């Protein structure tokens, strides 16, 4: 039951303490107010100083520990996979062009095929990951610089036919004669043209995932493009080196080594700057993946370095694959770390609290 004394009460300091209230006069109502102006908790006569008023120092609070933001709905093997493949595709295209210009036919062949293969797979996983794959073409309705995904779509749109043509030249023997001639004619210009977008293909994926509210990704938005670029180069270099004869593989090795070393340095830089937000990178699945990545990096760099001194196809294959693995592991690691940081409200709330000085 509830008692609702209407009209103001006479302010005895007990329940009710304010003079106001409507009146019913002969000429009708006076001092009415809409219900939305009800003063909740205004008249309980609760004696202050009983404690409880003072909100305790900003300990972390949340709504039953529930996530504040939504983690990505992307599937790891698709999107983390694409982060890896994109790097390989872009890096591969650059190495292919270099090999083409510096007269390394075997390495050119390897790089072109690696790049084209990675590009093809990239397109596949991107489409597969859509909630409505048949609507892939809707991506081409607009060009939006505010959406790295839109930008990336157009980059890939321009990039993939070029590397495809270049790759066709390498498999000319399998083509009808006309097509083979055409491919032969267009291969180099296409390959060279691809290098215009290839570097961006390796780095924009950093912006792609950084441009979200996911704490680990967004907080690292400065480093990610470099990290992903370097990591992509390491993978491309590694794979091309592994797929090329040792005598021609030198540039690939160098590129791979450089990329791998840079990636490791950038990875540490991210940790230093992100502080507590970096926790998800070192814990759980992400932590395991990145520790494995570090091992692969060390192994890969050591093997390729060794091969650089004493040229060995075996070392190239082992080291190259190690670098590729490192790149893949790193990208999966960052992907899962992002998901974990999005799911845990601490990584959303605490940095914002610090920022707003709360």
């Amino acid at each position, binding site marked *: *039951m*509830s*008692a*609702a*004394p*209407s*009209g*103001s*009460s*006479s302010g*005895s300091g*007990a*329940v*009710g303490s*304010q003079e*106001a*209230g*409507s*009146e*019913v*006069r*002969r000429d*009708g*109502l*006076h*001092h*009415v*107010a*809409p*219900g*939305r*102006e*009800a*003063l*909740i*908790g*205004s*008249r*309980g*006569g609760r004696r202050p100083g009983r404690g409880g008023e003072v909100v305790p120092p900003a300990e972390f609070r949340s709504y039953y520990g529930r996530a504040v933001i939504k983690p990505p709905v992307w599937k790891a093997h698709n999107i983390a996979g694409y982060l890896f493949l994109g790097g390989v595709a872009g890096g591969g295209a650059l190495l292919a062009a270099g090999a083409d210009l510096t007269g390394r036919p075997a390495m050119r062949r390897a790089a072109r095929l690696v790049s084209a293969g990675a590009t093809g797979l990239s397109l596949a996983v991107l489409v597969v990951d859509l909630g409505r794959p048949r609507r892939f073409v809707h991506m081409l309705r607009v060009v939006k610089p505010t959406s790295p995904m839109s930008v990336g779509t157009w980059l890939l749109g321009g990039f993939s036919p070029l590397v495809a043509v270049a790759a066709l030249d390498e498999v000319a023997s399998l083509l009808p004669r006309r097509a083979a001639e055409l491919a032969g004619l267009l291969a180099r210009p296409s390959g060279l043209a691809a290098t215009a977008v290839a570097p961006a293909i390796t780095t924009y994926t950093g912006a792609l995932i950084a441009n979200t509210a996911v704490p680990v990704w967004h907080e690292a938005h400065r480093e990610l493009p470099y990290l992903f670029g370097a990591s992509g180069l390491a993978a491309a270099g590694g794979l091309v080196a592994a797929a090329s004869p040792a005598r021609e593989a030198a540039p690939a090795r160098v590129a791979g080594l450089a990329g791998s070393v840079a990636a490791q340095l950038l990875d540490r830089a991210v940790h230093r700057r992100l502080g507590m937000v970096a926790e998800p990178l070192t814990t759980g699945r992400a932590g395991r993946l990145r520790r494995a990545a570090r091992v692969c990096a060390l192994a890969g760099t050591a093997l390729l370095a060794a091969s650089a001194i004493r040229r060995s196809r075996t070392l190239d294959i082992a080291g190259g694959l190690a670098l590729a693995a490192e790149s893949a592991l790193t990208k999966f690691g960052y992907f899962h770390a992002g998901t974990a940081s999005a799911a845990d409200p601490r990584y959303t709330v605490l940095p914002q609290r610090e920022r707003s000085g709360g």
Partner: protein
Amino acid sequence: MAECHPVGFQWVMEAKARGATLIHIDPRLTRTGALADLHVPIRAGTDIALLGGLINHVLSNGLEFREYVVNYTNAATIVSEGFQDTEDLDGLFSGWRDDTSSYSTDSWQYEGVRVASAAGKREQGVKENAREAGERRSYQRHATERGHEHGSHGASLTDLHNLRRDESLAHPRCVFQLLKRHYRRYTPELVARICGIPEELFGQLARAVTENSTRDRTTAWAYAVGWTQHTVGVQYIRAASVLQLLLGNIGRPGGGILALRGHASIQGSTDIPTLYDLLPGYLPMPHPDSHGSLDEYVADDASETGYWGNMRSYAVSLLKAYWGDAATADNDFCFDYLPRITGDHSTYQTVQAQLDGTCKGYFLNGQNPAVGSANARAQRLGMANLDWLVVRDFSLIESATWWKDGPEIESGELRTEDIGTEVFFLPAATHTEKDGSFTNTQRMLQWHHKAVDPPGDARSDLWFWYHLGRRIRAKLAGSTAERDRPILDLNWSYSTSGPHGEPSAEEVLQEINGWRADGSCLSTYEELTDDGSTVCGCWIYCGAYAGGVNQTARRKPHTEQNWVAPEWGWAWPANRRLLYNRASADPQGRPWSERKAYVWWDAGKKKWTGHDVPDFQPTKPPDYRPPEGAKRQDALSGVDPFIMQADGKGWLYVPAGLSGGPLPTHYEPQESPVPNLLYGQRQNPAREVSRRRDVDPYHPSGDDRGSGVFPYVLTTYRLTEHHTAGGMSRWLPYLSELQPEAFCEVSPELAAQVGLSHLGWATIVTARSAIEARVLVTDRMVPVRVHDRIVHQIGLPYHWGRNGITTGDSANDLTHMSRDPDVHIQEVKALTCDIRPGRRPRGPDRRRLVEEYLGRAGITAATGTAHRTTEGHGRAE
């Protein structure tokens, strides 16, 4: 209120916005408490002690609204010498009879007059008649035997001029002094010990209520079934009435006692009753032994003074509505056609009759007793003992499927192949699929128009009963048997439409409103006559179709009319929005306060005027005094605002018409963890109990042996997200997902004591059954310090059953069938139980667990069924 009437709660919010203080009194902090200024936790079942404490606070501090009390209530009236109070008899009033387990109310009378309530329970009449062959005048019989006073009017008085009053309120036997004495011991300290409300908190509440009840201010009380569902339910409301009358809060704007009914049109179903003992408009059901003729019936029940003096007109107009041209003055307007009441046929009596095998058929219309009624197990066992059962509902509720998947089937108590009951399920239409009217809490009729056709075979109730009647009449057509006349002569012609022949609901409303001989619609019950020239299906609804217009369908925005909004729907009687509003003006007819002006006497125009329709003879001046021997309303003076009462006064003290006593007294619930600290008499002596250990055993109470087996207080209730027994909500995904599982609410203290964990399972056990529910541990539940111990209370929503989208055990499997003697309502808001961690046993083990508890508590058929628990001479202590 925010919990169960969220839409109505917007007006509470508006009151708050206008400066009102909101106080929430409840064992649990509900959604209402979340927004209230003050939450007063209370031990369930002790509200009369609290209200008595407030009454005592008012009386002992002289805070009553003296002028109002003297002029508008029976405070000054002198009560006969024979009356003895509970204070004298250790919890009994004078007149207790062990042979009938009821009061004979002779000694409660006013001095010098005889009183008989004007409608009610006739089965007691039978007893009476059997006992003493009606040599006394019938009203005397009622005076001595009658309980049960229904609805809109009080008891009849003869020899009103003999009534003795002492307006100084000093006479030791005047009602005012009796009140003082009766509530003397209801001190803040006692309230604390009984209700568990700390004295400081009580003081705060008492100040808030009294300081806000003056000439310039009024206080309203709102309650729902939390107040009514007790073995002293009627006395709860009476206690609030006494307090409000003393404070001058009745008949004034912002005052009153607001009954928040259980669901849509429950008010309507008492006005045009689905109750067994009433005819429309609270006319009593005639009685076989004394009502051979209409004259006897009327003489018996019509009071000679007050508006109820017009009962003959109301009755004749009703008979004309039933039997039209067949009803003539010569055949007593077919009065003989009316069925006669032969006993208590209330819900729970009916269940016992089913168990006894004397009730063989059962109609359930939008009711789900297998989940919603107290002791649902007894309800199901009763239905299993029928010949036939008809369930009309729009979902396949448990009451229609218990025979194949009920708890008793699971436990092996019943085997489907052994059940003889033939069960018919007939799909029903919802309110959106048919025309009709709702009459809700504020007595307002609101018309709703059909929005869509009912699906498939679903039909409206009107369709069902009209066509059932039509077919029966067709079968009987041409019969010459006398017993078929009432059916064949019925006025049963309503125009139908549509492929299924849907009768016109509007024509039914027209018949309820009534018409004159020329067929024109009546506009007020003042027009009703007793010569058969008027037809009216329910006198209090007369005017709902005034001028041939469906007044209930009016929806004029409040912005386009005065603030009382008389053109929004239609309220009975005569579209009055505030009953007894004459009381909003002082005896001279001036508003008590210019900031509380509602209706007043316009001396210039020589009539009553104001914001609302005056609840008074429009031109009776305040200085009118009735001449000797005046009858009906003319016997009431220009001062008396309570025009349905024989003496025109608000009754602080009820000389006749109640079974439980003339004054509300604190009794412990049927099952209580503590003794009654006031009296040797523990529970309401006149309460009704079933003596069936097999289906309806009771717990030992207080300090009796075995009471410790059921140490906790259990209170049941509903949630915003579900609707009563769930028929309207558990089949809807959008509602089910909001409260997806049956749960109980416990305090952290109880959880720690018993070892319950948040979201874990608990098994709750009573002598009736054992159910399981998920546990919510919440600060909103607090233990109370009562008597010499700490009492823990368990909150348990009662929506769930085995059918629907969201399922769970039914709380009502735990509750018992002990009842209030006046309205036979069950006590499901306060009982005792035990709670233990974990899920309940499955199959036969469930009964075994309950039997084990029965054994441990030493429960017999007699346990808790004693009516009188005191010797009744002086207080035992």
